[in-house]
Structures are given as structure tokens and as C-alpha cells.
């Protein structure tokens, strides 16, 4: 009689618990030296429940299938001039921020999940971390392969890893991840798997990728959804990991709550860049930042925190602030990029009338009153040939590193500005959320590498803007400045003329 087939749960049990062993000649604390210093208490690693039960054979099978699908699309893009299918060249600036800002984070995640796969004492969690580490490397590679097609035709993509380590707006995502990878294993898990992937990643990938599809960017939607299919596994890991920590010991609850508060706010500040991309860089819109926030954070997050209430976990501190300022932040971030387009490897531009009407409709309480007049004044200057560029360097928040342009939550006409003192020096933060984070770990955040401070200290290539831009590897006059007048605009207009030829045109 043939042996009975194992069920999915039995197979996974053998694969994880069955392949682990108890050490006999080394002490556990020597094998897992990072497991205890954060104060997290785990009594029974065997109680860990794996949400997804992917065995190694199934994992390779599905990942290979995802890759085959994706690379077929990439080939098709290359062969069929896929770059001509996007709605407008302005759209591509969102893709530039993505490769400059997000792709290097995938690589960081790959490295740190490999670290967790070695250092978490439970076999089930180690296996999940190992798979996630491989996933993140795949995301990094597929994003580079996909976007390399656009690099043949558009500016600002040519040296993204170099730029990631130096540019002022890219220090926002970079410092976010540096903060996470320099934390202990359980804080990293809570930060990245739970607060970022579970609670906030929906806002990063899902509406933005749907927007890519709507704007004819077949390549980005395909790598985005291919990555997102792995994210579903990652975010589920985040939820189960946090639940596991909370169930293991009551003393873990306040530690985990502190991490949730910190990383919710860090992630939310980081996502204001994505919100700006959604509201301003997509010529055709799927949903506004404010709608995405309501659907993915307020509804889904609300259900999640109601579920976790049984463990004594409450909604993240300052979630109410994030809700209250949802009508403001994307306009404030766009304004920062408009101010400093001369020092960025992306373009910004005048917001046209049709787009202004959409913003008025989506932000009836805030847009017309506070932001439209500013944009119209900028338009007037640009039409006189005096396009506004801010020639001063901005103060950066010591924690999130975004220029300090956010306003007080109850007063959109006053910049929000907080000060802390540490060992005789003053440190500035953009919000109560960032100030709390600084005050909790001043030794850590006092060391932040702030791009503006570094320029003033003479560490960024020189004292003039062209010298700093050279040090950034920005190709001046192409990568930076307004979209209007850029080589990219001229090229796009030529392509669009070629699309509707008035007479036959020979292939070049």
C-alpha cells in the first residue's frame, strides 16, 4: 500500500521543527547573541504559528513562475518600445524616485533578513526570514532589470546607488532603513515586517502600481505586482510575529507598543514622498493620497488595531495627527520638490488647470485655500521667465530628514518646529512624532548623516551648487531643473509627433 500523502500542515511542520535541533555542546545564548538584549522574553518558540506554509519545493516553483512572467514582459517592453506607451514623460519621474529611493531598500532588506535567518532562535521564523531575504534580493534585481530599459531613454536613473547614498531627498528612505538595520532583531521585525509591510506598504505599492498600469507603464506594474505577491507573505509574517511576541510575555507589550509608535510615524513620514508621487506625478489618477489613506490605513489599520486590542495594544501614537493632516502633506512635499528641483535628479513642473481642478475636488477643505494660490504665483513667475528656485538650503528634520516644511496640525500657516537638547547641542525635528523618537534615543539620532549639514561642513564636493551636484553625479541641465525646457521634454515631444506622422517616416 502506498504511503499516505502528508497534508500541507504536516509537511511544513517536518520542514521547520523537524529539521531543527537542540544544541548540546554550545550554549544557546552564544549561538544567538542578539536574542535577549532588547528585553523581549520568549518562553516557547514551538508556539510560533506559520501563517503561510510554503515548503522549499513550492517556494522555488512559484518564484520561478513569477520570474518567467515578469521577464517575458521586460523582453516585450524592450522589443516594442514600451517607453512610448506611457501617458506622459512627466510620469517617469515617479519611476525615477522609485529606483533611486526604494530599490536600494530592497537590497538592505535582503541583507538584514539574511541576518535574521541566522540569528532568530526559532526555526519557523528563521525559515520565513530566509525566504524573505531571497525575495528581497529578487525585488532589487527585477526592479533594476525593469527600470534599466527606461534608463536608455530618460535622465536621472543612471547612477541610482551612488545618488541613494548622497542626495538630500534620498537620505529620507536611506536613513529610515539604516535606523531599522542598526536596531535589534525584534525591533527590526516590528519595524519592517509589521509597521512598514503590514500597516503601511499597501500605501506604498498597491495604489501606486495600479496608477502605473493606468498610465501605460506595463513594466512597473508587472514588477510591482510580482513583488507585491511576496509582500503578502511578508506582511502576514509581520502580523504573526507581533502577535507571537505579545502572547509570549506580558512584559513584551510595552516594548512592542513603543516600536509600533516609532515605526508607524517613521513609515508615515517616508510615505509622504509616495503620496506626493500619487497626487502630482501620475498624469492619470487612480485615487488620491487621502483616499488611499482612508481605504488602506483607516479601514484596514482600524480593523487590525481593534484585533490587537486584546493584548493591550492601542493604535499608534500620533495616528490621529496623520489623519488630521492628510489634506496637507502631499502638497507640502510637492512644494519642497518644486523649490529644490535644481538640486534633484527628478523634474517638477507647473500644475496645469485640469490637475488643479482634480486637486480641488479631492481636497475640498485644503487645496484651494492654501496651495492653489502658491502654485498660481509660481506659474506667473515661470511665465515671466523667472521660474522660482529656492537658493537657500533647508533645515532638515533630525529624524525623518525631510526639509522642515510641514505645518502645525491645527494651523496650516505655521511651520511645525520642535527643538530638543542633547549634551549641550540643539536638535530640530519636524513634528511631535519625530521629536519623541529623537528624545527616546538621542545617542542614535545625534549621529544622523544630514545632507544639508554635510554640505555646510564641506563634505559634499565643494561650497557651490554645481560642485555639490557633481559630487551627487547629477548630469546638470538634464537630470535636474523644471520639466519644461528639459531634454526629456524635447525628446518626448519629438516622439509624440512621430506617433501621428503626416507623411511616411523611415525607421532610424
Amino acid at each position, binding site marked *: 500500500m502506498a504511503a499516505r500523502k502528508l*497534508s*500541507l*500542515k504536516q509537511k511544513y511542520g517536518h520542514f521547520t521543527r523537524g529539521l531543527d535541533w537542540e544544541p548540546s555542546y554550545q550554549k544557546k545564548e552564544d549561538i544567538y547573541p542578539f536574542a535577549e538584549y532588547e528585553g523581549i522574553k520568549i518562553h516557547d518558540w514551538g508556539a510560533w504559528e506559520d*501563517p*503561510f*506554509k*510554503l515548503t522549499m519545493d*513550492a517556494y522555488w516553483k*512559484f518564484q520561478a*513562475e*513569477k520570474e518567467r512572467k515578469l521577464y517575458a514582459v521586460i523582453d516585450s517592453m524592450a522589443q516594442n518600445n514600451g517607453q512610448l506607451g506611457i501617458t506622459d514623460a512627466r510620469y517617469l519621474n515617479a519611476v525615477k524616485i522609485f529606483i533611486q529611493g526604494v530599490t536600494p531598500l530592497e537590497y538592505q532588506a535582503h541583507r538584514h533578513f539574511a541576518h535574521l535567518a541566522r540569528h532568530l532562535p526559532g526555526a519557523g521564523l528563521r525559515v520565513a526570514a530566509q525566504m524573505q531575504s531571497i525575495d528581497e534580493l529578487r525585488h532589487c534585481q527585477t526592479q533594476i532589470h525593469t527600470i534599466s530599459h527606461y534608463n536608455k531613454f530618460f535622465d536621472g536613473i543612471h547612477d541610482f546607488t551612488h545618488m541613494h547614498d548622497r542626495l538630500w531627498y534620498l537620505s529620507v528612505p536611506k536613513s529610515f532603513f539604516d535606523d531599522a538595520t542598526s536596531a535589534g532583531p525584534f525591533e527590526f521585525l516590528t519595524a519592517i515586517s509589521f509597521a512598514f509591510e503590514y500597516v503601511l*506598504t*499597501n500605501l506604498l*505599492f*498597491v*495604489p501606486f*502600481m*495600479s*496608477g502605473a*498600469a*493606468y498610465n501605460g507603464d506595463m513594466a512597473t*506594474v508587472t514588477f510591482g*505586482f510580482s513583488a*507585491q*505577491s511576496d*509582500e*503578502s*507573505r511578508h*506582511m*502576514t509574517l509581520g*502580523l*504573526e510575529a507581533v502577535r507571537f511576541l505579545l502572547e509570549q510575555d506580558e512584559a513584551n507589550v510595552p516594548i512592542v507598543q513603543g516600536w509600533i509608535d516609532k515605526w508607524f510615524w517613521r513609515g508615515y513620514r517616508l510615505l509622504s514622498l509616495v503620496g506626493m508621487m500619487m497626487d502630482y506625478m501620475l498624469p492619470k489618477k*487612480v*485615487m488620491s493620497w487621502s483616499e488611499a489613506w482612508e*481605504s488602506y490605513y483607516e*479601514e*484596514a489599520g*482600524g*480593523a*487590525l488595531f*481593534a*484585533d490587537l486590542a*486584546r493584548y493591550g495594544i492601542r493604535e499608534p501614537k500620533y495616528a490621529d495627527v496623520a489623519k488630521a493632516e492628510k489634506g496637507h502633506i502631499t502638497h507640502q512635499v510637492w512644494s519642497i520638490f518644486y523649490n529644490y528641483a535644481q538640486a534633484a535628479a527628478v523634474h517638477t513642473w507647473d500644475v496645469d488647470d485640469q490637475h488643479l481642478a482634480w486637486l480641488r475636488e479631492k481636497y475640498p477643505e485644503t487645496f484651494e485655500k492654501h496651495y492653489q494660490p502658491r502654485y498660481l504665483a509660481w506659474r506667473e513667475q515661470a511665465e515671466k521667465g523667472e521660474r522660482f528656485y529656492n537658493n537657500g538650503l533647508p533645515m532638515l528634520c533630525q529624524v525623518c530628514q525631510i526639509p522642515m516644511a510641514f505645518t502645525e496640525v491645527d494651523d496650516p500657516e505655521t511651520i511645525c518646529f520642535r527643538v530638543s537638547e542633547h549634551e549641550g547641542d540643539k536638535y530640530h525635528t519636524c513634528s511631535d512624532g519625530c521629536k519623541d523618537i529623537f528624545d527616546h534615543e538621542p545617542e542614535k539620532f545625534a549621529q544622523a548623516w544630514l545632507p544639508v549639514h554635510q554640505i555646510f561642513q564641506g563634505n559634499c564636493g565643494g561650497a557651490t551648487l554645481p560642485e555639490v551636484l557633481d559630487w551627487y553625479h547629477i548630469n546638470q541641465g538634464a537630470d535636474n531643473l523644471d520639466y519644461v525646457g528639459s531634454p526629456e521634454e524635447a525628446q518626448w515631444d519629438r516622439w509624440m509627433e512621430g506617433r501621428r506622422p503626416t507623411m511616411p517616416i523611415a525607421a532610424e
Partner: protein
Amino acid sequence: MSRPVSITLQNSQDGIAIADAIMADNSDADRKSFPAMTKIDCPGRLVINSESVSELLGREWDPQEIHMSVISLSGTVDEDDGTFTLFWR
């Protein structure tokens, strides 16, 4: 009222079949369409039956194939040989 669980699927051939199966098997499910994706919310609990998806696709569909089509989800996951379930405890 029970809290909503949610799943977002690609508008691929398999993804659409999964969405159709969810709508047929979960009477309270609410379906929203976006470019390239479909989001389904359901109060309390949402079940995907492999039998229903297999019937719609005209081939044997393994619940683990959900990995090929899912974009996002909200809720606790329970996966076994015949079903994929999302719920809140």
C-alpha cells in the same frame, strides 16, 4: 459589526477566477475594481474554496497558487489543502 478582512488580486486570468469564486462563495463580499487590480472586502471572514476556483478555471487549482495572484491582504491567514481563509480572531 464584524471587522472587515480584505484581499486585493491581480486582474489576470487566475486572479479574476479567484475573485469570481470569492463573490460566489461569500455572500457579504464587496468587490471594487481598479486599473489592473480588484479589491474585495468582507466583514469578519472570507473563504476561497479551491473547488470553486478549479470549476471556473477548468483545471485543478491548488490554494497555494494564491501566491501567483495576490497583491495584498488584511486579516489573519489560514491555509490548508482545500481552502484559503482570511479572518479576525
